[in-house]
Structures are given as C-alpha cells and as structure tokens.
C-alpha cells in the first residue's frame, strides 16, 4: 500500500480535534459521541486511521455479517482480556469507518500513540472494503449473510462480492475466518489467500427442512439447488452441490456434541487445530454456538490459547439487549431482541426445547430501525410453536400478550397459527406492567421486542427501578 509521508503535526491536530469533539458532544448531552470524533479527525487528517492502526503491535481484526456481530465482537473482547491482550473496540452501532476511526483516535494519546495492542472492530457489511483499505487488518471474519434489510444492500450475492473485494487488502498470512455452514459465506473463501473455516457437526440439530425464509439454497457458483445433509437454521447447514464440485469446506474450528439447555445456555465440544475443549455458554440457542465458534476462531488465529478461550466463553454474560435478564421485584424479565425471522425462529425453537417460557410478551414496532414493513412476521414459523403446544411440550403456558405499534398485526399472525392471544395492548409501558402483573411471583416473563420496542421496555423497566440504565454497561 502506498501512503503519503507521515505528517505528525497533522495527526496531532486530528487527535486533538477529535478529543474536543467528544468533550463537546458529552457536554451537550448528545449521546455517547461514538462517531463524531471520527468524523472530525478524518476531516483534519484523512490518513488518520491508516497511521494509527499501523501503530498497533498486533494489528486488527474485523467482524462482519448480518447477524451476531455485536455478540461475537464482545466475546472476542472478553477472550482477549482473559489472555491479557489490550484491545480497542468501536462501540455498538458505530460500525462504519467513522466509528472505527473514532475508537482508535480516542485510544491514542495526543502524539498518536495507542494505549492498546490490538484493534477489534465490528464492521457493517458495506463498510468492509473501506475499513480493510485503511485499517491494518490481520483477520477478517464473515459470520453469515441473511436477507435482513434488503432496501439497504440489495441482493445477498452483491453483498458477498463487496466483502470479498476487501480480501486483497489483508497481508499474505492474514486469516479470513468464514462460516463454512453458510454456502454463500463459504464460497467467498475462493478469493481469500488464507481461508479458515468454522462450522457445526451435530446431527441432532437437523431441522429436516429448509425454512421458508431460506435465502441462498442454490449453489453460489453454478446455481444448482444445493443438497443438504442437515439444515440447522435458515440456509445454514451441511450441504454439497450436485451440479459442481462446490461443497461445505473442511472445518478448522468445529463444534460437536451440542446440547441446547433451554433458555439457560448451551454446551458443546470445541475442536481447533490446537486441541479440543469443552465449552459451557450462558447464552441460549444454536446461533450463539456460531457466535462463540467465530469468536474462538478469531482469537485462536490471533494467537490466543484454547484454555483462555474456553474460560472466557464460560464467563461471558452477553451483550446489552440481545439477551438480558432483569430482576423485576419477585419476578424476572428475560429480554430477547428480535431482529429478523431467522432470529425469531431460533428464539421460538429455544423456547420449544424448554418449557420455561410460560409467560410471553411480544413487542413489535415498525419504526425505521425496526424495519417499517412487518410482513416478515409471516415468514416466522409460529406454526412450529403451535405444534409444540398441541403435543403438550409447553405445559402451563398462558396466552401471549402483544404490544407495540404493530400489536394488532402480531395478534392476527398468532391467530392464523392457531395460537392463543391474551391482551392486545399497543402501549408498551402499559403492556409491560400488565404482563408483569400477570406473571406469578417467582416466575419469568419472556419479552420478545424489536429494536426500538426494546429501548422503550428498557426505559420502562429502569423507571420502575428494575434495572440500571444501559449506558452504565
């Protein structure tokens, strides 16, 4: 890479300006100021990210993909901490190049010397090429590609191309960590110098069918319908192409003997090039096994030993809002963020596997950050839950309470799956109070909110004195 001669005065000015910007945005109370310092620093010195990232002795790792970026990045951060590696992170939601720049600038002293040894960034799919071109990436991990916000990115294959165009900016020994069980993600490995694959081998988790929402069930290379030996969720599973030599690549990091333990967590055996270890994760669902696998692979590629990985994962509590338990007087509220049909299905499956979820509040908003179009609710497999109820696998379950700006749509969806609807209360605060009261003391209320509904519920819980505001996290 060719770069301009280093200009220390300019770098100094950029770092100083960024710090003042942060101070100003804090004083004005304009949120956490997590991208503004980046915008300001880049305006003063467009080369600031390149220069600062080069000074990190261990280089940087970037995590991208549709689902699980935040949780996976937090897991890696915990692993690095356990191993005694000082890493600098961008904050959640600040995952464009400005957010990455801000994190590095604020980690540096006025002379541009970083306090950390390594950079660890979650990066929005579309921003990967820009971050890879400027930051000194040693590792790039691609978790999965699901249809999430089609308006933003257009088609999945295109997103794949955008991400793989960044591979050439990695050094020759740089690792591209890829989910082997997602065919489109696995196919990106062909353009990587050093692809490293992870995946799950657990026949018991085969759902036996591609979900209605499956995004890429055709071979990404030749278009033939893929043959699946196991479908774990969406289009993720064990597959090969009948029409060409493409198939699931050989795994370097593998999870087997996966045991879902309801809403409490999951156990599995992690096999890596460096050995094998048992992992207990206090986060529910198969999707978190994938997050943990990706985190283990990235950390191991960065040189961290398996004992640190397994210990850190065992102690990991989860990222804000994704999965969270809140003590609500003599009851408990268990918050599980809903992002899209795949995540919703996984949450339902986890409930079905356990009969814990007897009291459920579903909160669907259609603000911009939730997605204004709620037709995706019809892609969620509520019929699976109706089957479980019929078979008596959810003993003692009470009817669902629904809330949010689209409470009525949710009620219709449940009606057409023959599931019982209790109260329909569009007002979130009122619905939460009603649902908590209806939950017997000692039991747990499961709250399934979309993004902005989650923020409102957090706020209400906090006003009721049940939790700490999330920015203290």
């Amino acid at each position, binding site marked *: 890479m060719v770069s301009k001669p280093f200009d220390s005065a300019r770098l100094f000015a950029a770092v100083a300006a960024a710090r003042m910007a942060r101070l100003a945005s804090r004083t004005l109370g304009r949120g956490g100021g997590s991208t503004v310092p980046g915008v300001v620093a880049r305006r003063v010195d467009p080369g600031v990210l390149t220069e600062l990232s080069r000074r990190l002795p261990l280089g940087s790792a970037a995590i991208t993909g549709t689902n699980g970026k935040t949780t996976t990045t937090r897991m890696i951060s915990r692993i690095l901490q356990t191993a005694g590696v000082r890493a600098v992170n961008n904050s959640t939601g600040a995952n464009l190049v400005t957010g990455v720049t801000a994190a590095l600038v604020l980690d540096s002293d006025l002379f541009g010397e970083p306090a950390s040894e390594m950079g660890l960034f979650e990066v929005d799919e579309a921003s990967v090429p820009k971050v890879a071109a400027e930051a000194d990436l040693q590792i790039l991990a691609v978790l999965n590609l699901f249809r999430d916000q089609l*308006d933003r990115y257009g*088609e999945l294959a295109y997103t794949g191309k955008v991400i793989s165009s960044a591979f050439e900016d990695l050094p020759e020994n740089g690792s591209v960590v890829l989910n082997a069980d997602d065919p489109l993600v696995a196919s990106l490995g062909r353009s990587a110098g050093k692809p490293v694959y992870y995946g799950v081998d657990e026949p018991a988790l085969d759902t036996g069918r591609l979900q*209605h929402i499956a995004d890429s069930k055709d071979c990404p290379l030749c278009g033939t319908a893929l043959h699946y030996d196991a479908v774990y969720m969406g289009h993720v599973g064990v597959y090969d192409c009948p029409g060409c030599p493409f198939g699931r690549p050989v795994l370097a990091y593998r999870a087997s003997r996966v045991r879902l333990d309801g809403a409490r967590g999951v156990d599995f055996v992690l096999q890596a090039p460096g050995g094998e270890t048992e992992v207990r994760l206090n986060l529910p669902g198969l999707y978190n096994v994938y997050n943990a696998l990706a985190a283990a692979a990235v950390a191991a590629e960065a040189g961290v030993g398996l004992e640190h990985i397994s210990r850190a994962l065992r102690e990991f509590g989860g990222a804000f809002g994704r999965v969270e338990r809140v003590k609500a007087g003599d009851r408990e509220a268990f918050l599980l963020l809903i992002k899209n049909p795949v995540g919703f299905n996984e949450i339902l499956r986890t409930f079905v596997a356990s009969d814990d979820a007897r009291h459920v509040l579903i909160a669907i908003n259609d603000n911009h950050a939730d997605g204004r*179009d709620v*037709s995706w609710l*019809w*892609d969620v497999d509520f019929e699976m839950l109706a089957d479980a109820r019929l078979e008596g696998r959810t003993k003692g379950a009470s009817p669902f309470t629904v809330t949010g700006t689209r409470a009525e749509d949710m009620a*219709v969806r449940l009606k057409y799956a023959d599931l019982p609807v209790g109260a329909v209360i569009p007002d979130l605060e009122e619905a939460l109070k009603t649902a908590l009261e209806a939950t017997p003391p000692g039991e747990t209320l499961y709250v399934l909110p979309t993004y902005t509904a989650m923020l409102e519920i957090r706020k209400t819980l906090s006003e009721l004195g049940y939790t700490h505001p999330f920015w203290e996290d």
Partner: protein
Amino acid sequence: MKLTIHHLYADMMNLYGDRGNVISIKKRCEWRGIPVEVVDVGLGEPIKPTGCDLFLFGGGQDREQTLLVEDLAGKKGADLRAIVEDGGVVLGVCGGYQLMGHYYETPEGEKLPGVGVFDLHTEPRKPDEERLIGNVLVRVRGPEDDRWREIVGFENHGGRTYLGAGVEPLGEAVVGFGNNGKDGTEGARRLNAYGTYLHGSLLPKNPWLTDQLMLNALRRVDDAFELEPLDDAAERVAFESVANRVRHG
C-alpha cells in the same frame, strides 16, 4: 369439493412474507371445513389445475426474476394465459404482478418478457428516482357488487408500472404510490386475475378480499356456493390501526 392453492415459484419468490397470503387462504378454508391443499409449483414443473383453483404468484429479487422469465416463456405462460381467459383466479403480487404484464425492464436496460395477462408494462426506476416504499391505502371497487371498499398493505418497488387501454386498475391509491406514483392507480384486474404492489400480508388484514378470491374459485365448481361468515374482529382491528395511521400521516 377441495380448493387447491397453487403457489407459483414458492421457493424463489418468497420475498416480503408472501407466505402470509397462502396461510390466510388456507386457514379461512380450514376454519369453515372446506378441504384445502397447497401445491408448490417450481421451475420446470407444470401447472396442474383441478377445477377449483387459486393461483398465487409472489415477489422476488431481480436475479430470481430473470430465471423465471425463461420458465414462463414456454407452456407454463401459455397455460396461465388460458386460465385467466377462462375466468380462473390468479393473484400476482409485486414481482409476480410485474411478470403478468407485457414486459418488465430491469435497471440494466434488459427487457424481460412477461406472461401478458395484463395490458401493462413496467419501467425501471430512473437514477434520480427513489424506490416507492411505505404503507398504502387503496380504494377498490368490486365488480361483483359495485361497492367501494378499502385495502391496506405495504409497497416496496423500484419499477414503475403503466397500464394500457385493455386493463382496469385494481383501485386508486388514497395514500401511497401505487403503480407508478404518478397516475394514482394501483394494481390491475382482468376477469378474476388480480395484480397488486401491496405485498406480504395483503390478505391477512383484508379478509374480505381473501374471501372474494376463495368464493370466485369455489363458484367455478358450484355457482350457488356461499361462505360461512367468520369472526374477523382481530383482522378488522389490525386493518383500522394501519388505515388510521396512514390517513393521519
């Protein structure tokens, strides 16, 4: 008497919750004790009408749309045309609706020929134009009873559809863009074939339309057939909630 729902390209054109339309028809049959079967019709598979049929043709991504065009150019397209001319019941949504016209032009300038059931064509979004996205309220006049009714839904399309002289619009967009954001029309109707940009959960919140499609299909076998009324309170509340929001911005 059994109603067969033929879900065209169910495995490819499943964008935006089109499955909701299938579930709506299926459940409203089951609740009334009318036997119902859903048949997925994929690429290269023929349409096999049973006499009491409802054909659903949903939306898809551009890449998938291109694959379908070849499939529709042969016997399947001809069969679909014959079905419509014979009064068969067809609902095309978004991408499916576009392919029921003469042609659909992609943003790259490629003209994909459609089935030609409707006298209409679809032009691509120009570089300075936005995608047409948002909640929609449409006024629809039923040829069966000449009554004006309303439907709500969500639209999200780049293509602009223009109707020819040989086809009626499904209705007029009271709120939202409709066919092209210019002439106030939404969708198309010819005989018992319907096309619309209102996707995904079109039928769940508009149960009268679901029932009309079902009745049109069932009456092809028994012209005195009547549908038992159902309790649509939940659907009505969901309709009103969206309708009130879009009316008041």
